[in-house]
């Protein structure tokens, strides 16, 4: 950023950053600080007495089998979403990158789901898998499978994963396609001249060059699965049946806004904050490395 300063006004730069700083302070910094502060307190249900309890809220959470369950579920869920969405979109991107007829039409037809909210994706799949009216649910029942995701936790989780992956594939597709286009054709041709088959050329030349994109997408898909899928879960299962689809974010919402356990939910916020900071740090470490790589 050196050598770019052009103007020497004293007040103007402060006025220019003011809107961003004011909103950031009011809606990011202050609430985050509040969450940390609240996570160290315990209030009685009427809010009459509040006392400092140190890390007790965190200790209580990590002793709570439901919270531990939601952690396990969140990691299982985001692992499944990220892995499936990334592999499917990599396959589609590699195919769409080939010099085939109608490649542009395919690209458009694979990109548009980016436009939909996870909650909308959930509504679309609900219509297909609703146990008594959904046509795919009916087909499953005819095939002798007792499909009712409102009763079976595993099915509910599967449905939320399906809707979340379906929506995310196009996002990953966009990045993989950009990554593929950035690879010089000469590299692949060189590998083929050396006698590599297409498959071999892909795994030994193309895939390693896509590694930065893949790592970036792993981080983005994990964040997506942790946070953005709230809408899909809320529309499809509301965390149920039982707690089969109650991820960490959904539990935070239920405890904060339905059960009014404010201190516990503040502690849950802090845990999620730590997680996002870890992920972001991971991502930036990797981007650093990409700078050296290219």
């Amino acid at each position, binding site marked *: 950023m050196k050598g770019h300063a*052009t103007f020497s006004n004293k007040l103007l*730069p402060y006025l220019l950053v003011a809107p961003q700083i004011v909103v950031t302070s009011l*809606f990011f910094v202050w609430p985050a600080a509040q969450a940390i502060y609240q996570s160290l307190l315990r209030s009685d249900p009427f809010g009459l007495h509040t006392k400092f309890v140190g890390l007790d809220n965190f200790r209580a959470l990590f002793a709570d089998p439901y919270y531990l369950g939601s952690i396990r579920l969140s990691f299982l869920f985001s692992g499944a979403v990220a892995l499936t969405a990334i592999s499917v979109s990599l396959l589609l991107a590699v195919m769409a990158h080939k010099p085939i007829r109608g490649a542009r039409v395919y690209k458009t037809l694979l990109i548009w789901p980016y*436009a939909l909210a996870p909650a909308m994706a959930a509504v679309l799949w609900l219509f297909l898998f609703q146990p008594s009216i959904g*046509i795919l649910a*009916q087909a499953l029942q005819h095939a002798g499978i007792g499909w009712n995701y409102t009763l079976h936790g595993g099915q509910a989780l599967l449905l939320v994963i399906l809707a979340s992956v379906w929506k995310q594939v196009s996002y990953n597709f966009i990045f993989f396609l950009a990554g593929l286009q950035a690879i010089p054709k000469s590299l692949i041709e060189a590998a083929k001249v050396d006698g590599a088959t297409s498959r071999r050329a892909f795994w030994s030349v193309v895939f390693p060059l896509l590694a930065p994109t893949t790592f970036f997408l792993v981080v983005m898909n994990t964040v997506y699965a942790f946070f953005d899928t709230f809408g899909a879960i809320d529309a499809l299962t509301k965390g149920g049946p039982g707690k089969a689809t109650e991820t960490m974010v959904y539990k935070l919402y239920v405890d904060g806004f339905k059960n009014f356990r404010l201190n516990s939910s503040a502690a849950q916020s802090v845990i999620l904050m730590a997680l996002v900071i870890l992920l972001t740090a991971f991502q930036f470490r990797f981007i650093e490395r990409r700078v050296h790589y290219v």
Partner: protein
Amino acid sequence: MTRRSRRPRNIGAHLVLLVGVAVLVFPVYMAFIGSTHDAATIGRGRLPLTPGSHLAENYVQAWVYGTGERVSGTPVRVMMANSLVMAIVIAVGKISVSLLAAYAVVFFRFPGRMFFFWLIFITLMLPLEVRIIPSYKVVSDFGLLNTLAGLTIPLMVSATGTLLFRQVFMTIPKELLDAAKIDGAGPMRCLWSIILPLGRPSIAALFVILFVYGWNQYLWPLLITTERNMDTIVIGIVKMLGTSESLMDWNLVMATTVMAMAVPIAVVILFQKWLVQGLVETEK
């Protein structure tokens, strides 16, 4: 490479792509089919795979009333207007706020500059969900529940926009602004007549991304708007899904769904080039 060796591989590619497209399109196609039948046909669980004859009446009813015998909602035209306003205000607000901040950080030297930059930067690490209850409380303390300001202003800050504009601005040659300065142009004049035109492609790309982002907001509007006439379309549809989902006017829900999807999908397809550029640029 001979002709023979190329052909079978391409058939494979077409097959994979066709299956992919089919899986993506099928749920949307069935939503459209659902929106063309009457509630009873769907309720029997025997939905045909071809369009029915109730298209016009379903769409008119959803658009004008939003309610049927067994589903109550706000008219789609109201919810679409709410979503449109929210999406545009968030997009324009976010772009303006981050453009001004990036302009200050790149072209001015002032005490606290790096501090401000890092303050903006840390917002990357604080998704709405991790600060949701205190943020809600701030909005409620300001008396902004059920207002457009409360709905949009807290979503207007993101580091992504500022970082993108910072990158774009740093590629603008310093000489260009020096020349303008010699001609007597002040900083605001330079912003308006030099920076903005040069930044137009990034602004357009960011607008598409943020419009979709705004249109698709879920958790925040769910908490901030409690009055039915402020429902956005995404919230409205989920609210329509009652507890006994089999006894619903699915035809109206699906007509609403199709209309709700049409706007952001049209934006993405029409501005596909900008969207792809913008996404890949912002994440650099």
